[in-house]
C-alpha cells in the first residue's frame, strides 16, 4: 500500500482528501504546515505529496523547493494543489520543481487519476533504485573475491568525489563520482576467478579478457537511467590521454573528465595499499607514479597536481587503517574488498 502525504493549512481540506484517497485504498498522512510536513517526510518518506500552494508561514512553493533540492526526497512525486489557475503561479510551481498541478476545488475523478498515475511513476523509480542497489552489491561482491584491499571502492568514492568538489563540478557529477568509485569494476563479475585471481603474470589472451571488464560493466549499467552519468566512468576509467588505454583507445579530451579523475585516484590507491604481489608504498611513491603517468602523457597534469595537493602526505591513509573509520563517516560497510591488480592495467 502506498502512502500519500496531504499538506494543507485547512483541516477540512485535509479531511476531504483523506476520505477520498482512503476510499481508493491509499494510506494518508496529513500535515497542516510546512515544518510539520518536513518532519513527516524525513521520518517516513511518502510515495506522493499533495501540497497546498497557499499556506501561512512557509508556503507550498518554498516547501516544494526544499523537498526537490534534497537528494533524499526529490524523487517523491509532488503535486501542487491550488485555487490559483494563472500561468504565473504555475511557472512558480514548475520553477520550484513540482511534478504536477491540481486545481481546487477538485474534480474528483481527475484527482484520483493523477494520484494513480504518479504513484505508478514512483513505483518505477523505486524499482530502478533497487536495481541500482543490486548492481552496487554485485560490485562489492566482486571486491570481496580478493580479501587484500579492504575499502578500495569506498576510498575511490571518497577521493574522486572530493576532487570533483575541488573542481567545482555540479552535484550530479559528484554523485556520479561517488557511485563510480563503487561501480568502476563491476564488470569484473564477468571475468573468471582463475584469471582475475591468478598469481603471476597473465598471458596476452588473459590480459585481453581482463580488459573486457570495462565493456561488461558498461553493459550492466546500461539499462539504468539513474546510472547514465556513471557509465562513462565504468567504461573509460582505463583510457590514457595518449590513446594507449582501453577499451576504446580514446585520446585527450575525448576521455570523459569523470573517467580521468577515477583513473588518477585508482592508481594512487593501488600504490598506497598492500596487494598480494607488493607491499603498501609511501605517499611519495604514489605521487611519483602519478607524475610518471603525466610525464608519459597518460594523465592530465593539472588534475594530478590538484589531487596530490588535496590528499597531501599527511592526509592520506596509513596502509591498513580504515579511512571510513578515521573520518567517522556513516557509510555502509563494504566488507573485505579487493581492488585492482596490475593485471588490469591500472599501474603497469
Amino acid at each position, binding site marked *: 500500500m502506498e502512502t500519500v502525504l496531504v499538506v494543507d493549512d485547512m483541516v477540512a481540506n485535509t479531511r476531504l482528501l483523506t476520505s477520498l484517497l482512503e476510499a481508493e485504498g491509499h494510506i494518508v498522512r496529513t500535515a497542516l504546515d510546512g515544518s510539520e510536513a518536513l518532519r513527516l517526510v524525513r521520518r517516513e518518506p511518502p510515495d506522493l505529496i499533495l501540497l497546498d500552494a497557499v499556506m501561512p508561514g512557509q508556503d507550498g512553493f518554498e516547501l516544494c523547493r526544499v523537498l526537490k533540492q534534497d537528494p533524499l526526497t526529490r524523487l517523491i512525486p509532488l503535486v501542487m494543489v491550488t*485555487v490559483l489557475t*494563472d500561468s504565473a503561479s504555475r511557472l512558480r510551481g514548475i520553477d520550484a520543481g513540482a511534478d504536477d498541478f491540481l486545481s481546487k476545488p477538485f474534480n474528483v475523478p481527475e484527482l484520483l487519476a493523477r494520484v494513480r498515475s504518479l504513484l505508478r511513476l514512483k513505483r518505477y523509480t523505486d524499482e530502478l533504485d533497487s536495481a541500482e542497489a543490486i548492481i552496487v552489491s554485485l560490485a562489492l561482491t566482486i571486491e570481496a573475491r580478493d580479501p587484500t584491499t579492504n575499502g578500495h571502492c569506498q576510498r575511490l568514492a571518497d577521493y574522486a568525489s572530493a576532487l570533483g568538489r575541488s573542481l567545482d563540478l555540479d552535484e550530479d557529477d559528484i554523485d556520479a563520482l561517488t557511485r563510480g568509485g563503487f561501480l568502476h569494476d563491476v564488470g569484473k563479475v564477468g571475468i573468471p576467478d582463475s584469471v582475475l585471481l591468478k598469481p603471476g603474470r597473465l598471458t596476452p589472451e588473459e590480459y585481453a579478457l581482463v580488459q573486457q571488464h570495462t565493456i561488461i560493466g558498461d553493459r550492466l549499467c546500461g539499462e539504468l537511467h539513474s546510472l547514465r552519468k556513471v557509465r562513462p566512468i565504468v567504461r573509460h576509467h582505463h583510457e590514457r590521454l595518449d590513446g594507449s588505454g582501453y577499451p576504446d583507445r580514446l585520446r585527450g579530451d575525448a576521455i570523459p573528465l569523470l573517467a580521468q579523475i577515477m583513473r588518477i585516484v585508482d592508481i594512487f590507491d593501488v600504490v598506497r595499499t598492500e596487494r598480494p604481489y607488493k607491499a603498501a608504498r609511501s605517499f611519495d611513491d604514489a605521487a611519483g607514479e602519478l607524475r610518471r603517468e603525466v610525464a608519459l602523457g597518460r594523465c592530465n597534469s593539472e588534475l594530478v597536481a590538484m589531487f596530490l595537493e588535496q590528499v597531501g602526505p599527511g592526509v592520506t591513509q596509513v596502509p591498513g587503517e580504515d579511512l571510513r573509520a578515521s573520518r567517522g563517516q556513516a557509510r555502509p560497510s563494504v566488507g573485505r574488498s579487493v581492488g585492482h591488480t596490475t593485471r588490469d592495467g591500472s599501474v603497469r
Partner: protein
Amino acid sequence: MSHDKERHDFKNQLGIIRGFAELLVKESAPDDPHRADLEEIYTAANAALELLERLYPAQADTSQ
C-alpha cells in the same frame, strides 16, 4: 490583495462543501433516502462556485 485572499478563502470553503457532498453521494446507496438531499448540496455548491467565477473572474488570481 485582501480581496484576492477573500476570494481564495471563499472558493476554498465552497470547494470543501462540494467535495464532501460529492464524497457522500458517491458513498450512498442508490436507494439512500438522503441521496437526493446530498445531490442538492452538491449542485448548490457547484452553482455557487460558477457564480463566483462569473462575478469575480480568475484574473484576480494573477496578483498572488
